[in-house]
């Protein structure tokens, strides 16, 4: 199998996106179908690559025939392709849902932007070059701002502007980090930086890591940079929120995992510590705990279903950051698994929420009282998604959270237990507010509904619900892939030798 053809995963969405204005002149429906078909192609191709890579070990794809570290390369590991598959899957489902909603004037451009956002997220998880990652993060953040603003309400513009401001500050910090890295090491290739990062003065290294944090924490919805989350999620259309939480934050978390662990990290014993004078592992744990607590407590006070789901999404990102901070392989496996579960369940929840909001005409959960009596099917699907996120036994979130707890217990320092207790306490809060929504839905109350729902919408949520249930019942379905993915983060030497050749060890 020629790995250089993996570039098609990035080139095809870009080419189709450039052609979209021409399709848009023919008809708006066509652009939506084209977007869906592109994602379907990418999804299928990513799965075939994933199978190959899981069997044969990580591969690289070279761009322009310039070998790394001189040119830009793609790094195709199990983790990259697994996350790419999730991203394309969520994109595919959301674009399928998108076909079903009534055509609006801007829909041709919207499907174009959707294509670019998902394509860029796919590129972020595969690229092996620091500056290239920055460029695709920019495409992602500009596209996301457009998607948020596309609802054409005052609120949505406010959300989009907030996101733009955070994104711009973040990208400036990221560029500073890139400048410092290039100035000291003279390279931009992630593998070469990983090989030589410990040569940097520890104070400067800490500063680089700190600056890098700014760039990727915006997308990953982590604590100091997540003030945009409530406004943007409230302002955007709910099916756009499915992309925000399923695609954008997945890409952000990948950047944190790859760069913090593989590139900035050093293996010590059974865990990876992030290099520098400051103890970034402890900082990540603290940030994870703070994000989770803020997210869960804020979700508890909200009445708007989009905001509740947004804060919950933030909280899950905190849990994953906690797992990364723990830094051993079990916790990382759990983190990656939780990322998958979160992307699928949140996409499901947001799409169902979109249908309910269309049906009820309001996003306030008080107005949804009695919806479960009226439309049992949708309410049950919502409950499935919610159970998946909470981690009710025999739903998908349960298994990933177990992995994370297991990893945290293996660290067995008093501070980890202390942090873990906060995470578990926050999980209880989560149970409370999700059950409140479900309870409200099944309350006995007459409700009037409008707007028929397109069958495509039903098909997309049923597909997602099937995935949630399957993973919950057979959690070992992915265990092979998950172990290989977390081992890929953990085995830094393998990453370096795969990209730069076996010779660098000499």
């Amino acid at each position, binding site marked *: 199998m020629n790995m250089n053809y993996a570039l098609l995963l990035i080139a095809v969405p870009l080419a189709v996106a450039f052609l979209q204005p021409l399709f848009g002149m023919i008809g708006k429906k066509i652009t939506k179908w084209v977007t869906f078909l592109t994602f379907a192609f990418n999804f299928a191709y990513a799965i075939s690559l994933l199978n190959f890579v899981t069997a044969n070990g990580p591969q690289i794809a070279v761009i322009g025939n310039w070998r790394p570290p001189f040119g830009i390369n793609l790094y195709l590991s199990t983790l990259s392709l697994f996350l790419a598959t999730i991203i394309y899957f969520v994109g595919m489902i959301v674009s399928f849902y998108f076909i079903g909603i009534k055509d609006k004037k801007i829909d041709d451009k919207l499907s174009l932007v959707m294509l670019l956002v998902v394509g860029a997220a796919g590129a972020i998880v595969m690229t092996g070059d620091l*500056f290239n990652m920055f*460029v695709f993060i*920019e495409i992602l953040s*500009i596209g996301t*701002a*457009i998607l948020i*603003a596309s609802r054409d*309400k*005052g*609120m949505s*513009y*406010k959300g*989009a*502007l907030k996101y*733009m*401001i955070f*994104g*711009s*500050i973040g*990208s*400036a910090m990221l*560029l*500073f980090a*890139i*400048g410092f890295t*290039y*100035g000291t090491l003279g390279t*931009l290739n992630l593998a070469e930086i990983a090989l030589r990062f410990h040569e940097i003065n520890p104070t400067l290294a800490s500063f680089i890591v700190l600056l890098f944090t700014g760039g990727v924490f915006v997308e990953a919805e982590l604590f100091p940079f997540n003030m945009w989350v409530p406004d943007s999620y409230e302002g955007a259309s709910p099916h756009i929120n499915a992309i925000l939480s399923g695609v954008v934050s997945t890409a952000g978390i990948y950047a944190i995992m790859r760069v913090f662990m593989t590139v900035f990290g050093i293996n010590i014993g059974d865990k990876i510590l992030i290099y520098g004078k400051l103890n970034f592992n402890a900082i990540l744990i603290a940030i994870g705990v703070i994000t989770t607590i803020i997210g869960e407590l804020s979700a508890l006070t909200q009445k708007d279903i989009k905001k509740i789901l947004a804060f919950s999404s933030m909280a899950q990102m905190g849990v994953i950051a906690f797992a990364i901070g723990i830094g051993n392989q079990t916790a990382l496996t759990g983190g990656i698994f939780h990322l998958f579960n979160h992307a699928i369940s949140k996409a499901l929840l947001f799409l169902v929420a979109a249908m309910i909001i269309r049906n009820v005409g309001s996003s306030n959960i008080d107005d949804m009282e009695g919806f479960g009596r009226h439309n049992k099917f949708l309410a049950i699907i919502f409950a499935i998604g919610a159970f998946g996120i909470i981690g009710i036994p025999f739903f998908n979130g349960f298994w990933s959270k177990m992995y994370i707890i297991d990893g945290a217990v293996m660290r067995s320092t008093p501070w980890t237990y202390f942090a873990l207790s906060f995470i578990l306490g926050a999980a209880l809060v989560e149970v409370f507010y999700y059950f409140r929504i479900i309870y409200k839905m099944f309350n006995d109350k007459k409700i009037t509904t409008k707007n028929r729902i397109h069958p495509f919408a039903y098909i997309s949520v049923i597909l997602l619900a099937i995935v949630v249930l399957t993973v919950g019942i057979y959690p070992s379905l992915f265990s092979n892939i998950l172990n290989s993915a977390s081992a890929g983060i953990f085995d830094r030497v393998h990453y370096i030798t795969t990209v730069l050749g076996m010779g660098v060890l000499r």
Partner: protein
Amino acid sequence: MISSIFFYSTAFVLFLIGLFGVLTRKNIIKILVSLSITETAVNLFLVTVGYIKNGKAPILTNTIGSIGMNNLKFVDPLPQALVLTAIVIGLGTTALSLVIAIKLYKNYGTLNITKMGGKR
């Protein structure tokens, strides 16, 4: 001869000024101006990273003649390439944020972010 310490510091101080502006200003246009300042700061920083004493512009011309391992006369071209990309990205971001600012003014009738209350 000015040391590159001066340029590094200027770039970072400019960045901090921009950051301070974003954090404290209430007017959207002023916030966007502050963001532009941070972008400029980053570009200055990157160019400084690539600066080599007595280096020429990295273009091979008749007057420069030839270049080899023993007579490297150029400044580092890679940061300049990065700055080129960063400028274009900055342009895109600024254009989009200004359009969003126009639409916000249409919707709320003000550019002050604290006065944009209520659902509209």
